[in-house]
Each structure stands twice: as C-alpha cells, then as structure tokens.
C-alpha cells in the first residue's frame, strides 16, 4: 500500500512536470533537445603550431593526435596514430577521448583548417583543465592540408592500427608497392615509421591511409 502510494505520487509528479513543461514557452523541447557537444563548449585561448612544430611534438610518444574531421575525410587519410574525434561527437564520446588522453602530455588537434579544429581544441583544453589534467593542447596550423604538403608523419612511437593495416597489405601482396614499410626503416625503428604512401591515385604525403 505504501509503495503503491509512493509510486502514484511519483507518477503524478512526473506527469504534472511534463504537462507544465509543455505549457511553458521556455520549457525544454523533448523532441529537439540535444546536449552541448564538444564544438559548442565555451572557447578559451588555444596554442597554434605550424606543421613543423607539431611534427616535432608528435615525435614524443606522450603526444596524442586528434582528427576532428568527419568520417569520410578521416577515412581518406589522416595523420598516423590520430584519434578520430569529429566535431559532432557527443559529450560521451568526448569524455571517452579525454580518458584516453589521461596518460598523454600533449594533444595535437587538427581539421582541414585551423578554424575547424580550434573549437574542439578549446573544449578539450577546458575539460582537461576541469579534470585536473595538465596536458598541453595545440591546434595544427593549416590543418591536414598543411601537414600533407609538408610530407610529415609521426614516425616514432607505437601505432597498432598502422601496423595492423600494413600487415593486412602485406598479406594482400601490396606491401611491395609501398615505401617505408615495417622492416624497411632504419635500425631501431619501431616498425611504425611511415613515409609518403599512395592510395587510390592520391598521394597523401606522410599520411596514414585507411
């Protein structure tokens, strides 16, 4: 009886609340409401690095690279070891990305342009600061295009995805058409060294192509 009364009270409260909300001009729109995404977070000043500077930073295994472009552009080519963190990511995805950044000292964020990456970088910087993380967040000046033109790639540190891709290509007998494959690098190479690769007729200087 007590539980039934409590349930009735809660149901009445919820129904009344939804009714009041529907009547309020400033009520939350149940069908159209969306949480604020990483791109919509308040902006804070952010450090911009040219491709050479970002590449220098990328040689540090404690650096994480985040690609904010959409899936299609990411699939065409992205910086080696880049984490895909598109602008439309939900707060949940952004939080998971933040968790993966916990052990990194720096995060390089890039898009097709500087302005495309800046909002995500600013939001990441703010959230990292809120979480008490001291990671340095920078934006790649000129975006992926500038990186591509400089023929740059992160050539140090682990890159499991890249290694898996190369292994797959070797199995498919395509490895001989690529330069800079694992085993072809200098002594001491980690097997994750990449040089310009060609895919579907497009040269992607220093980029890891899926």
């Amino acid at each position, binding site marked *: 009886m007590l539980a039934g009364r409590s349930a009735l*009270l*809660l149901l009445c409260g*919820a*129904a009344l609340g939804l009714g009041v*909300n529907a009547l309020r001009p400033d009520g939350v729109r*149940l069908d159209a409401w969306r949480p*604020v995404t990483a791109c919509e977070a308040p902006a804070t000043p952010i450090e911009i690095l040219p491709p050479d500077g970002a590449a220098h930073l990328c040689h540090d295994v404690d650096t994480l690279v985040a690609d904010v472009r959409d899936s299609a552009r990411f699939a065409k080519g992205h910086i080696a070891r880049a984490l895909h963190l598109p602008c439309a990511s939900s707060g*949940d995805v952004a939080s998971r990305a933040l968790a993966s950044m916990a052990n990194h000292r720096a995060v390089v964020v890039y898009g097709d342009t500087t302005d495309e990456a800046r909002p995500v970088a600013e939001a990441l910087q703010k959230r990292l600061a*809120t979480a008490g993380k001291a990671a340095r967040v920078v934006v790649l000046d000129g975006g992926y295009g500038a990186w591509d033109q400089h023929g740059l790639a992160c050539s140090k540190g682990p890159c499991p995805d890249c290694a898996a891709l190369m292994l797959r290509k070797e199995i498919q007998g395509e490895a001989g058409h690529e330069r800079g494959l694992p085993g072809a690098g200098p002594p001491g190479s980690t097997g994750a060294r990449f040089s310009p690769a060609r895919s579907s007729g497009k040269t992607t200087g220093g980029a890891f192509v899926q």
Partner: protein
Amino acid sequence: LSSDVASETTPPPRRVTARGAIALASRLVLAAVLGVAGALKLRDPAGFAQEIANYQLAPELAPYVAAALPVTELLIALGLLLPLPRQLVAWRRAAGLAAGVVLAAFTVAVVSVVGRGINIDCGCFGAGSGPVSGLTVLRNLSLLALAGAVTWIPSARAITPG
C-alpha cells in the same frame, strides 16, 4: 458512566517522543531541501537537462527527467509539509518513501560520477550547485536517512499513550 463516555470521546493527549521529534524534524528538513531544489531546477529546464546529460548515464532521457523531476520534487515536498488529517497521514509516509526513491537515484548517479572520475557540476540545486564530490555523496546519504526516518518512524501525531 459519564466519565467513561468522556474518556471514549475525548482524544487522548499527544505525547511528543524523541522518535516523533526526529520524524518531524526529518520531514521539515527534507521538505525544505526538496522544495528549494525543485524550485531552482524549475527556473531553467534546458540548463538542468544539460546538467543531467553531463552525468553520461542516459543522456537521451535528460530532457524528460529535466521536465518531470522538479515538479515531482515540489509535489513530494508538499506531501511532506501539508497538515493532513489522521486518515491521510499514510500519504505523508508515502511522500517520504517517494523522496527516498528519488534520493536513492540521485545517490547512484553521483556515486557513478565520482567512481568514473568525471568532473561535472552537480545540478542538485540547478545551475551553479558546485561539482560532484564525495561530499555530495555524503549529503545524499544523509538525506536518504531523513527519508527513511519520515517513512519508518511514526509521526508525533500518531504516537499516543495507551
């Protein structure tokens, strides 16, 4: 005979016990907290929806919870505060149990946030409620204890001699 009739018709004098006083105090504190929390949340439902989404538990439900919860809290506070006739006192205990259910859900949410190490605003009293922390968990547990007292300890009105 007349004294016997008088003893049957005259209600016995009320005796406020320590347990009754605890129940009364718990009821008033709980009603005040839920009333204030509900009223503050009601001011900015969209902002409150964002606060709920930040908990990352079921963000798609955030607008529904944001719309329903503040009024529910106010209704529970009213149920705890209103002077009710003896026949309806059971509804007060029901309000206490409902408060316990709501507070238990809050507690699960804040413990989850603390456990996952997420740094977000509590949203417990609308915007600017401060971050979720161990203190938030403690506060919720204390309020849960008050809800338990309201639900399970008989009120001062219900305690009569004999």
